Every structure is written in C-alpha cells, then in structure tokens.
C-alpha cells in the first residue's frame, strides 16, 4: 500500500509537470498576446511602445527562459504579477478560491443529498409511477443548460420577490448570505444531482439483483436494512467516482453559473484572464485546477479502499 501511494504521488508530480508544459506552450501558440489586446482596445499600435511593453512584461524572452522563470517562481511561492491589474497573481487568485470552493462544496452537498436518496428510491421502486417521475426529473436535470436555469431562477426571483440573489461580498442578513450561495449552488447542483441519481439508480439495480441480497432477504433482514445497509454500501463506489469527477469539474467548470449570478470566483476569473492573455493568472489557475483534479482522483482511489475491503492496493 505504501509503495502504491508513493508511486501515485510521483505520478501526480509527473502529471502536473506535463500539464504545466502543455498549458504554457498552448497559451503561446494561441494567436495574440496581452500587448496585442491592449493595443487592440486602444485601436492603434505604436511599434516602439509595443516593443517596450513586451520587454517590460518579459514577453520578448525565449519561451524556454519564460517557462523556467515561471516554474522557478512557482516553486518559491512567487506566482508573478497579473499583466492586467499589475498586482501579484497570488493576491488576485487567493480571494477567489474560497468563493468557488464554497459554491462547489454546496453544489456537491446538494447533489449528494438529493441525488443519492432519490436514486435509491427510484431503484427500489423500479417500474412504478414514482420511478418514472424521478427519471423524468433526472433527465430534465441533465438536459437543462445551467445558464438557462440560472437566468430562469433570477427572473422568477425578480418577478416573485422583487429582488435577486446576485453576489454581494458583504451580505447584510443571514438570508441574503444563504441566497447568494445556495441558489446558484442549487442551479448548478441540479445537473450533478441528476447525474448522481442516475448512477445511484443503475448501480443499486445491479446490486439488488445479487445473490447476497436475496440471501439477506431470506434471512429476514428488513427492507430498509437490505436497501441501505447491504445494497447501498456496495452500490456507492461508482457514485463516489462520479462525485469525485464532479468535484474536480466544479472548481474550473462553474463559469456559466459564476457569470449568470455574477460571482467573482475562479472560473469566471480564468475565462477573463484567457480573454486578456494574462499568462501569469491563466497558468497558475490552470495549475491550481489541475492540482485539485489529481488530488481529488487520488483521494477517490484511497476512498475505494476505505469503503470496500475487497479492494486492496498491493505492491
């Protein structure tokens, strides 16, 4: 087990190195840099001023030198400066992480709290009206684009309450704080909940047909004990995988929700940074997201072993 963990950790470092090279090169392959965009916004270009600015930002140096400087700085905790705001990249990125993390955590919580029980109910009541109704709900959750759902919620909120839950860094009341995080979390979590529900249902259906379930019933175990103690415990592995993937996705994939609800989180900031070709912000944010993804994957793999004793990582 120890050797496996070490191997995985080394693999994680290799993966992160690979991502750093890919993102660094890709960013520079895309036509246009921050200097082009700044002059484009001004509607003119002065070649001398442009060259000066490129020199000032270090964009005139060979790509390898730029990469080494970035990685060197990263290893020392120096993420560089944002080209646009001219503030340290760390100072720009750090305040946004808790916002997105809070939103993603709430969305996941909503997804698990709704998706798993409904998935179990749907499987247990297979073929009933309730099952059909829940399947329609889950299908609609997967089909509705989250920007549309978000806008619909905002419009309904304005029409019904005369206000809407857009982001406010200093909410005045508890209810406002609840609304500005929970409503967007529900909008984005609806899709995750639908996915979780479908995975839970299919996994449960497979488990419920196993011999040991029949044996449990034959031994007189109660229906709820069979469903929740024997079946769900074994059906939950694929659900954890899905939740893990969703968790990783949500860190960088909340762009639409953050835009519609005007939440100044990581995803929206990343898209803006890409638009401006703000390399220090984009590179470091992508590395952060990559780190979250590999750590989440690692955690999920470790959870497998903890939850299912049949799984053992041997040398």
């Amino acid at each position, binding site marked *: 087990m120890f050797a496996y963990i070490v191997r995985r950790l080394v693999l994680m470092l290799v993966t992160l190195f690979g991502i750093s090279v890919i993102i660094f090169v890709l960013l520079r392959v895309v*036509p*246009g*840099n921050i200097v*082009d*965009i*700044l*002059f*484009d*916004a*001004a*509607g*003119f*270009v*002065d070649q001398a*001023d442009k060259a*000066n*600015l490129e020199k*000032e930002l270090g964009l005139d140096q060979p790509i390898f030198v730029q990469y080494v400087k970035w990685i060197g700085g990263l290893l020392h905790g120096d993420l560089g400066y*944002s080209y*646009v*705001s*001219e*503030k340290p990249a760390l100072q*720009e990125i750090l305040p946004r992480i808790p916002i997105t993390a809070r939103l993603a955590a709430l969305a996941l919580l909503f997804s698990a709290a709704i998706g798993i029980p409904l998935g179990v109910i749907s499987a247990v009541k297979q073929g009933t009206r309730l099952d059909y109704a829940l399947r329609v709900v889950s299908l609609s959750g997967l089909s509705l684009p989250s920007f549309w759902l978000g*806008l619909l919620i*905002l*419009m309904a*909120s*304005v029409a019904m309450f*005369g*206000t*809407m839950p*857009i982001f406010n*860094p200093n909410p005045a009341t508890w209810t406002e704080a609840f609304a500005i995080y929970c409503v967007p979390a529900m909008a984005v979590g609806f899709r995750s909940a639908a996915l979780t529900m479908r995975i839970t249902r299919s996994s449960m259906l497979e488990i419920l047909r196993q011999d040991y379930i029949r044996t449990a019933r034959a031994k007189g175990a109660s229906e709820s004990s069979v469903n929740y103690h024997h079946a769900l415990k074994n059906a939950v592995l694929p659900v954890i995988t899905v939740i893990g993937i969703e968790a990783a996705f949500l860190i960088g994939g909340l762009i639409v929700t953050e*835009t*519609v*609800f*005007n939440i*100044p989180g990581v995803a*929206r*900031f990343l898209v*803006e940074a890409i*638009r*401006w*070709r703000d390399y220090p912000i984009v590179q470091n944010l992508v590395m952060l997201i990559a780190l979250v993804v590999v750590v989440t994957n690692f955690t999920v793999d470790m959870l497998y072993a903890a939850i299912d004793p049949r799984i053992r990582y041997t040398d």
Partner: protein
Amino acid sequence: MRSVRALAAVALSLLAASNVAALAAEPKNGGILKVYHRDSPASASIHEEATYSVNIPFMPIFNNLVIYKQDVPQNSMESIVPDLAESWAWSGDRKTLSFKLRQGVKWHDGKPFTSADVKCTFDMLMGKSQQKFRKNPRKSWYSEVVDVTPKGDFEVAFNLTRPQPSMLALLASGYTPVYPCHVSPGDMRTKPVGTGPFKFVEFKANESIKITRNPDYWKKGLPHLDGIEYTIITNRSTAILGFISGQFDMTFPTEVSIPLLKDVKKQAPKAVCVVEPVNVSTNIIVNSSSPPFDNIDIRRAMALALDRKAFVSILFEGQADIGGTMLPAPGGLWAMPKEMLETIPGYGPDINANREEARKLMAKAGYGPGKHLAVKVATRNIPIYRDPAIILIDQLKSIHIDGELDVVETANWFSKVARKDYALGLNLTGNAVDDPDQSFFENYSCGSERNYTNYCNKDIEKMFDEQSAETDVAKRKKLVWEIDKKLQEDVARPIIYHGRMGSCWQPYVKGITIMVNSSYNGYRYEDVWMDK
C-alpha cells in the same frame, strides 16, 4: 366649454409649476449611487485607454483644464466652461492658448496642484517626458502643439504650429484629465489620484470599482453623493434584471440596446430612460491596395448597394441615424445637410435605382449573374460587429458579391487589419469629440495609425489642415461638408449608420445628463444626487 378650457389651462399651469418646482428642488446630499458596469476595464488610467468603460467610472476622480458643461446635452464650443483653468485666452495670431489656473486646488493625496502638473500631463501625451505611458492612443490630438509652457505656478500656455480652434474642444473631453506630476503612470493605472469630486477607493478586476466623496473638493458643496459603486456584471441579462429589481440605481450609460430598453420599460415602468446618439459609426473598411477592391468601380458599386435604412430598421427598430463621417443632426454639429447627403452615390432614396447602377459598374468590372465575386467579410466576434456584417453580406448579394463572414477574435482583430489581411471588413469607429479634427486626422489622414485602410489623398489632406485652421465656424462647416462628401465619394470608409443606445435610471436619481454627440464626456457626476 369655456370652463373646460379654463380648467385645462389651470391644470397645465399647475403641471408646469410642479415641473419647475421639481427642477428647482434643492439637491439632497448623501447616498451611494449604484451602477452596473459592462466589463472590467484594462486599467484606471483614462489617458492610456480608448474606451468609455474607463471614462465612466474614473472621470469623476479628475478635473480637466476646461470641460463641457455637464448639464448641457450637446457638446459645443459654447458649452465649454472653466474647470482647473479659471479662464482662457487666444493670442492675436491664434497660435497660443493661455490658461489662468485655479489656486488652492489640492490633489487627493494633499499635494498642491500647479502648472507643473499641466505641463507634465501634456508632455507625457506628446511623448516628450521621461515618464511614458504604456499606450498613448491620443498622441495625434496634440500634433499641432509645439510645447506647453508654464508661466509661474498658475498660468500655462499651449503654443501651436498654426491656429487650431478645436484644441479647446479636445481639452474639454472626458479623455483629457490633468494628471499629477508626482504619481507615476503605473500608479495611475492601478490607484489614480486626481483633484476631482470623488476619490479612488478600490478597483477589483471583474468585481467592482468604488469611489468616494472628496470632502476637500474645491467646488464647495459638491459632490452631492457620498460615493459611486460600479459592480462589474458582464452578463447583460443579469445586469438588466439587477436594474429592474432596484438593486442598481442606474444602468451602464448608453449600453441598453433598443430591444432591451423595451423590456426595461415594461418591467420597470417608473424608470427614466433615454435613447441618444453615441457618436459611434458603423462602417466598412476596404482594402483598396489589392484586388478586387483596388478597382474603384467595385468599391463604388459596393457603396451603391447599401440599403442603410434596412440596417437601421433591423438593428435599431428605426432609432439610428444615417450620415457621412460626421455625426448627423440634430445631435451632431458638423453633419452636411440632408439634401447634400442625398447627392452622394448610395445615399439617394431609390435603392433599386442605386443597385441597378451598381450592377452596371460590376458588369464593367467583369462580374454579373454568371460570375459572382467571392469575398470574405472580416469582423470582430462581437454582436455589434457581427450583426451588421451579416446584413451587409446579404445586401451585397444583390450586386453579385458573395460574402462569407470571417469572424476574428478581438485579440487578433487589429493586427489582422494592420497587416491588411482582409479584403472587406466591418468596423466601428467611436468619436470622443464631435469635431472634424478628431475624426478626419485620426481616421483619414495619410500615415495616421488609426487610418486602417491607408486611404491617402493629398488634396483632401490640405483641406483637413485648411478647415482645422479656420476660425470662422460657418466657413469651417462648409469646408467640412465638402470634405465629408469627398470622403464618401472616394469610398474611403463607407459609413453605414450612426448608432443610438439607451440609458436608464431610477426616478429618484437626479442630475444625470446623457450627451447627444459624444459618449465619452459626460460622467463627472458632481451634480448628481438622489431624492430618497
């Protein structure tokens, strides 16, 4: 009947009296004006940017030497009033413009304002100082300025190579604030210091911009507001819903499209909304240095094929203006009369006749129903560019030109245009000042960086200088009309239309004036107050 008339007269007089009373109401102090902002500006430095996304939030931090009177909707020489300058005077030969400066004015950091600050600002704009702007998009405005010379601490003179009456207009623009000598251009991009009615508090990219009341403002009793908060909301639907729900006191000025304005009026019937010209023209850029548009017949045929009214009707529900380079009347001051405009090929009312003539020109160039001309129509990948480009492609079909839309990301648009990597393009041109000098020299002068098409006509160039030096307004106007007509006939950069946009605010917001011939100059907001 008499009594009904009398009653109506009384009612009217009461209504008029109540309006006068409302207009004359004593402004109330206090309150934070909440406005949504359409995007996150590149920086806070007005001098380094070329978008009103910067002017709007940061203009209240500064003062100019002179400024367009903020409650007069039409910018003109008559509406220019003193600001940091107490007065100004032209020399006898009209080649020196002197300003007497206000004394006792302090920068927001407490340092005194003097003529050295004026010199610093304009030396930087002319590229003469040690300190440099990263970008200097309006350097060409000062091409006729030889130098700026202080005379003592509170007098300064602009020495010009030749008379240029428009210099005063350029100095009155929202794009011409005076910067402090002691603050670097870098700091002005991130934490600007001014002498204006509001002080900078913070600028969080993609989040918000906050400014607060300057208690030591040199105009006693102003500003009325405690501060202004701009929340950056890039999603237009969210922003409009925020205004409708009352979370914002005002929309981003001149940013509400005509269809959206209908929505706002329906859902927030008490909101005050206006639609005004923005002095931004939508035009066609033609690469006349390579085939097929090096052929003047094809360029003229294209100009003849335009149905401008269709553009205006589809995109603005009729609420936009048709004209030449200069903004059409009544908003614009320099537009040629309608009867003169209609003599220009392509501007006549009979579209079918125009297109018939265009087809003849195309036939002369070798194109007809059997042989179409295939071109790519390049434009930026933004709706206000893309939508008219699609209509243009449709209209060009009528003269056997098959256009294909070539959408270009913003990051690559200017470099593509600069290296002439296009045949035909659809472009937007904003004018900060409704004055021919700004428009002609910037967009049509030989060698100008913003003359994207490289149009160069030495005869017209002479006329540019002639009108620029002309001090008699009536004579200057006639020259301007002649130049504008010639530019359209040469198909230098065919103008399709001049757009209009809407602005809305809640009924308790007072003192907002939307300018009708520029969307860059009316955001000082020291007179704005809230009646709540």
